[in-house]
């Protein structure tokens, strides 16, 4: 897959509890989801998360959060970006994904495993997200999510 403009990852050592911070601005085009996930996952230092959790939990949860931010938050508006910030600490990796949309109420999202919803094509993103990480926190507006994967 080719992307029309290269993604630029920024990396800084922070000191304190967070040792390294990675950040990335992602254009509001779903074609960027896969490349952005690979770029960040490849830059994650070994240590807090096992390779298996990086390969599956981190990548899948990140792809979900990013796709939601691009499609539902920024409504694929090319004038908007999704800001990604990853804090790598000894005890956890925290992934912040923030869009420029109006937010939503996660409590309004129905359970996709209900029998009447099982054969629907969409509506599983938030459920998958919650299943794969240790903690999910939205800001009050609902346009920024912080996913926490504890070390292990």
């Amino acid at each position, binding site marked *: *897959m080719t992307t029309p403009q290269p993604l630029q990852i920024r990396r800084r050592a922070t000191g304190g509890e967070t040792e390294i911070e990675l950040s990335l601005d992602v254009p509001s085009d*779903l*074609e*960027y*989801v*896969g490349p952005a*996930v690979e770029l960040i996952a490849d830059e994650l230092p070994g240590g807090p998360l096992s390779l*298996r959790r990086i*390969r*599956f*939990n981190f*990548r*899948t949860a990140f*792809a*979900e959060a990013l*796709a939601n931010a691009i*499609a539902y938050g920024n409504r694929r508006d090319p004038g908007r970006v999704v800001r990604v910030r990853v804090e790598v600490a000894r005890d956890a990796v925290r992934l912040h994904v923030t869009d420029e949309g109006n937010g939503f109420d996660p409590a309004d999202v129905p359970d*996709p*495993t209900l029998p009447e919803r*099982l*054969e*629907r*094509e*969409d*509506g*599983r*993103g938030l*459920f*998958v997200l919650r*299943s794969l990480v240790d903690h999910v926190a939205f800001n009050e507006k609902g346009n920024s999510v912080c996913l926490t994967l504890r070390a292990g």
Partner: protein
Amino acid sequence: MSFSLKKDKHGVVVVGVDGQLIVGNRQELKQKVLDALDGGGKKFVIDFTKTGYIDSSGLGVLVSLSKKIREQGGDLRLCGLNEDLQTLFELTKLDTLFAIVRTPEEALAAF
């Protein structure tokens, strides 16, 4: 990241998912399988042996393909799921919707 399609000697269409099945490439998989369905394919196996991860859009496209194949009187089987992917299907209860077997050989033998 790509999809391979091949037909075995019994006419079973075997689709390999290499890398990931996510929002950015799910339409490509959907189109390839629908083309094979239009071309007379009835029996389909999707092999995830070489798949790293699947997001909810990828799961959604599998649900959609399963319905379309069934509507045409066909049959879809999934195989090659690693432990993590198997868990994803179980959490979302999609393991109750799909015929899932361990290996491509088992999938082919089950038709």
